[in-house]
């Protein structure tokens, strides 16, 4: 019997939701387990790093890596997996674009440490200690990974073959990707394994969208009673469907929540946030500066709104210099 292809899963800076997504394959996971040999999966199986190191280079068929890269240990691990794997798949928004952890790029290491270990009201840190990369104790030397100045998406650290977008990727897309891998029917390298068009194309509420969509106000969703049968944008709720890659089948919209952009931009767009700004500006039905400013007051956090999952892959980073955390 031919050997089953080896597969590895790893997580970096992430919440664990992507691991849940694998488990969400439900009984489908049994088919996956039957078809592949999982050689590394820290969250579920007891393999250690030396087990991976002992494998010949290129012997893992595919490594699914979720989470952004923020620590030196994460860099070491993804480099190791890259060396051992034929394909590396960036799994989920954080790995694909930097994700929610990437919003930390509004600050840098110094300002983050300053806040979390000295200034935050919850700090009870008598000696004002910060984590040290090396500490000598009687028993020997203790080490912690280095904390980087910036959070990076996976492909800013290693070569990535495919991207599975989403926060988290849907079971259907994961299943499709695994099947494509097993059958060897893969698209060209660098492809995002989801839709190619904007989410609105597959949204069931698209047909309720008026011919010419113009809005007079931007409503914040937690303060709004949303009509689940009507295009959210036409109700003034900021839905990022027009500038977000499809493939999720509009799960959030079906749950009466606006799209927040976790699948990232479409292939043609380089910067998701810039495109979000552009599209919202195009449909805002005011020409006077005062009106425009008033409407935009309801977008108190433009970076978190338009780059919620993509700040590390934005065209710009913040300017150098320490910014206050508060």
């Amino acid at each position, binding site marked *: 019997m031919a050997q089953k292809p080896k597969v590895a899963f790893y997580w970096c800076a992430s919440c664990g939701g992507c691991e849940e997504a694998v488990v969400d394959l439900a009984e489908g996971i049994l088919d996956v387990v039957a078809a592949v040999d999982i050689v590394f999966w820290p969250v579920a199986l007891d393999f250690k790093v030396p087990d991976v190191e002992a494998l010949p280079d290129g012997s893992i068929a595919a490594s699914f890596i979720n989470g952004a890269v923020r620590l030196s240990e994460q860099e070491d691990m993804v480099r190791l997996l890259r060396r051992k794997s034929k394909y590396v798949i960036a799994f989920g928004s954080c790995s694909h674009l930097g994700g929610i952890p990437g919003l930390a790029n509004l600050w840098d290491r110094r300002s983050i440490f300053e806040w979390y270990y000295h200034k935050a009201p919850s700090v009870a840190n008598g000696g004002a200690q910060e984590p040290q990369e090396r500490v000598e104790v009687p028993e020997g030397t203790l080490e912690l990974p280095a904390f980087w100045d*910036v959070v990076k998406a996976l492909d800013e650290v290693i070569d990535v073959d495919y991207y599975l977008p989403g926060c988290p990727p849907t079971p259907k897309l994961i299943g499709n990707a695994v099947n494509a891998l097993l059958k060897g029917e893969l698209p060209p390298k660098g492809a995002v394994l989801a839709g190619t068009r904007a989410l609105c194309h597959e949204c069931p509420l698209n047909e309720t969208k008026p011919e010419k969509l113009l809005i007079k106000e931007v409503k914040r969703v937690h303060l709004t009673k949303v009509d689940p049968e009507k295009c959210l944008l036409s109700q003034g709720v900021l839905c990022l469907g027009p500038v977000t890659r499809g493939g999720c089948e509009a799960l959030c919209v079906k749950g009466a929540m606006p799209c927040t952009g976790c699948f990232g931009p479409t292939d043609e767009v380089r910067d998701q946030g*810039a495109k979000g700004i552009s599209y919202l500006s195009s449909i805002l039905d005011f020409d006077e500066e005062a009106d*425009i400013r008033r409407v935009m007051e309801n977008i108190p956090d433009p970076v978190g709104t338009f780059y919620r999952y993509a700040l590390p892959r934005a*065209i*710009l980073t913040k*300017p150098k210099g320490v910014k206050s955390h508060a």
Partner: protein
Amino acid sequence: MMAMAKPDVPKQEFEPRIVAFVCNWCTYIAADAAGVARARYAPNVRLIRTMCSGRVDPQFVLTAFEKGADGVLLCGCHPRDCHYSAGNYKALRRYTLLKKLLSQMGFEDDRLRLEWISASEAEKFRKVVEDMTERVRKLGPLELNGGD
């Protein structure tokens, strides 16, 4: 090159690089007129002609900063004067939101500016370029956090 520098030449001062996106129907003509009239203004601005200020995708602005601009100037037709009727209003809305975003990221206010300059306002074009150059010069070069 360094070896050829004369010892008494003062250390080179910071010269801001400003990218200006100018509308074909107004500011581009004003800039041309300023040139024809031999108006003197800071040579720090690089003009990029677009068919309308509404054509300026916010990605253009971000890319200009990414590629080394210290400031970006957007110029279009006065309200109610847009050749395509509403492009300048779109530009105004994009600018307003982009400005808010850049401010949140820590960019100083003077790095991005929007001005309405009609085809006949060569003098205004000259003044805006001079003024913006001086403001950006005071801010110093834009350095982005590249990380480690």
